[in-house]
Structure formats: structure tokens, C-alpha cells
């Protein structure tokens, strides 16, 4: 069951990650279609995940649950509900994270995922967009970075749509199935974000 509401970014809301959410988060970190682009090589059991989430609380970063209204979730899944999900209105669809924050430099990195059954509806973009508002307007960051595994076109499209600039390629940074694989470096600066946000938008945030 999603923790309390932390921020809204229509059509998604961001919530704290609590013990009841561990099963859902664990899914994202074990499902091969999700964990591989995230470069999580060691699937975690719930104990390990719980310990890891405590370190997020200690660090300068945040991890938040991306949720949508039950109605929006039902549209995506074609069912009115799911026994494992919360009886409340908010349904978990993914997570967003801000990490490697260096306050004196004003930099941080982001990561995000959306469960396969909820992809394709703009939930990921809305969630990242709201996270960026948090990063730039509340954490006063000047720069946000995202690293994307080569071949993850959907993620690249999401970032470019939000104004991220492709800054380079870490060649052969990872190894997958016996091959060296590149990672792409993306960066977004606060003034670029603000200029983009000043233009007419297709959704509100608060």
C-alpha cells in the first residue's frame, strides 16, 4: 500500500516507499525486463531490499513510489482492481529516484521505472517531470544526470522529451552476454528546465 502522498504531477502522484510497498518495488528490481535496463545484476530478497531502502533514507537522495488513481490504473490493466494492490485510490505503477546528490555542486542523478502493464501512457514521463521539479525547485540542484544503457530507446525518448541533452557515451562501460555495451550520458541544467517549463505545458504540477 503506497505510503503518504509526497507530491502530485498529474496524472501521477509520488508517495513515500514503506514496508508494505516492498513487494512491488522488489518486482521492479527482479523482473528481467526492468532490472536489466536498470543494471541491477543481483535480484534482492525483501530483507536485502528493506536494508537498502534504509540507506536511501540516510543519504541525500530520495526514492518515491509512482502512483496513479485506481481508475487510470484500471484503464491500463483492463480490470477494476488487483488483490495485491491497495484498497485505497492510489495504485503503484513504478518508482523514481534521485541519488548521488552533491549539494555543494548542485548535482544529482535520477533513475526511474514503470511496470510493463502500465507503460505507454506517459506515467513515466509525468513522474520524472515531477521529480525534476522537486530536484530543481526544492533541492535547488543546478544539474541532473541520467545514464541510460544503449538500446533503451524508450528511456532516451522520455529524457529528450523533457529537455535532457545527450552529453556523451561511456563506451563499453557495461558487459552483457559477453559483449561490452555503451551507456549514454544525459544532462539537464536548471536554467534549461525553467525555460522549458515556461513554455505552454500539457499538464499541471503541484
Amino acid at each position: 500500500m503506497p505510503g503518504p502522498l509526497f507530491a502530485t504531477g498529474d496524472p501521477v502522484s509520488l508517495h513515500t516507499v514503506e514496508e508494505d510497498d516492498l513487494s512491488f518495488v522488489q518486482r521492479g528490481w527482479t523482473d528481467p525486463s526492468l532490472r536489466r535496463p536498470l543494471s541491477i545484476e543481483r535480484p534482492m530478497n525483501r530483507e536485502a531490499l528493506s536494508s537498502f531502502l534504509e540507506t536511501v533514507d540516510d543519504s541525500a537522495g530520495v526514492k518515491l513510489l509512482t502512483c496513479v488513481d485506481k481508475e487510470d490504473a484500471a484503464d491500463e490493466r483492463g480490470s477494476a482492481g488487483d488483490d495485491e494492490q491497495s484498497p485505497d485510490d492510489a495504485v503503484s505503477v513504478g518508482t523514481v529516484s534521485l541519488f548521488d546528490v552533491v549539494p555543494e555542486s548542485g548535482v544529482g542523478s535520477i533513475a526511474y521505472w514503470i511496470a510493463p502493464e502500465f507503460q505507454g501512457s506517459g506515467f513515466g514521463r509525468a513522474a520524472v517531470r515531477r521529480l525534476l521539479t522537486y530536484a530543481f525547485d526544492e533541492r535547488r540542484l543546478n544539474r541532473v544526470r541520467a545514464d541510460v544503457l544503449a538500446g533503451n530507446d524508450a528511456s532516451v525518448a522520455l529524457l529528450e522529451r523533457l529537455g535532457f541533452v545527450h552529453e556523451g557515451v561511456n563506451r563499453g562501460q557495461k558487459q552483457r552476454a559477453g559483449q561490452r555495451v555503451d551507456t549514454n550520458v544525459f544532462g539537464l541544467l536548471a536554467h534549461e528546465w525553467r525555460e522549458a517549463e515556461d513554455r505552454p505545458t500539457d499538464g499541471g504540477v503541484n
Partner: protein
Amino acid sequence: MPGPVVVDAADDVSLRTVERTDLDFLHRWQNHPTVRRWMPRSHPVRRPRLVEEFEGWLSDREDGLQALVCLDSKPDGEGVGTDDGNESDAADESAMTPVGFVSLFDEHPVDRSAVVSAWVVPRARGRGVASAAIDSLLAHAFDERNLEKLVAGAIATNEPSQATLEGAGFEQEARVRERYFVDGEFVDRIEYGLLADAWRTRNGGAE
């Protein structure tokens, strides 16, 4: 005093283990403006923290490699000398003078990648000392630790470090815009990368 050599010496430059008696050197230079401005590092390092680091990761065999860059001092006092008050003992067969520090860290066991960094004190710059130190570190990284990819970085205004990295075979991979705040303004970081295959081609294989 620096410990034994960890990587074969190149000319008169060697990489040696960091021992407790070397903490004065690290303490002094990690805080010195002429060194920290290029890292860049904006926080002072007090002695207790340095000791804690030394007893933690610096002495942890699992976590990369940290080593002092040392120059051979001639027994009769020629060569470098030191500026921390410890003159080479003329009776020593070869006194090692620490002039810098190299680090291999953030080793990723699955991807066999790691980060390298290095600094040398001002009077040891412009003489190929950093280049020799990095060459030694790369040989260790690729041939002993079996790493496949190394990354390094330099702030955009640090042209000497960029030249050293490029001279060692690193290629520019990314311009991380406005990564640091230095002297009152944002400065980019240039990220460099070097793959094991490229290094081997360049260096003709293990020696």
C-alpha cells in the same frame, strides 16, 4: 614512509603502498589549495577523518588500489628532496619521496570497470611524473586486476590533466556540463574512458 613498491617502477617513479607514516603527506596535500582546486575538493580534511579513511578503505584490499607516487631520491641529496621537513637520510640506499597519490576505485565486479584518479604536488608537475604514475596504474588495472574499462575525469579548466590522460590513451567520452562550482562559477567535467583492448593495442600486451 612509503611502503614497498606495488607496481614496477617506470624510470624513477614508483607506486608504493600508503603507510600510517605517510598520513602527514596526504593530510597536508589533500587540503592544499594547489592540489584540491583541481580535484576539485571543497571540504577540508581533518586528521581524524583521514585516519578513519586510512583504517577503512585505504587498508581494504577488496576496494581498488590506493598508492603513493614516489620519486627516487639520490642518497647524496640530489633529486627532489622534500618540503615537509623530512630530508632524505644520506645513509638510505634509496629514499623514496612521496610526490603524489593515485587511486583506483569504484570497481564494478560484474562490468569489470573502475575509476582512476591521480594528483601530484606542484613541484613534481610538468615533468612526466603523473604520466609515469598513470601508466603504472593502468598496467596494474588491466593486467593484474583484469579490468576491462577505466574512466577518469578532469575539470574543463584543467588542461594539464587532460593532456596527461590523453597521453595515456584515454579518449574523451562525455562533457558533463556544469558539474562543479569552482571560483564562483559552474565548470564542466570532461569524462574520459579507456578500454582494455585499446590499451593493449597501444602497449603491445603485458610486459
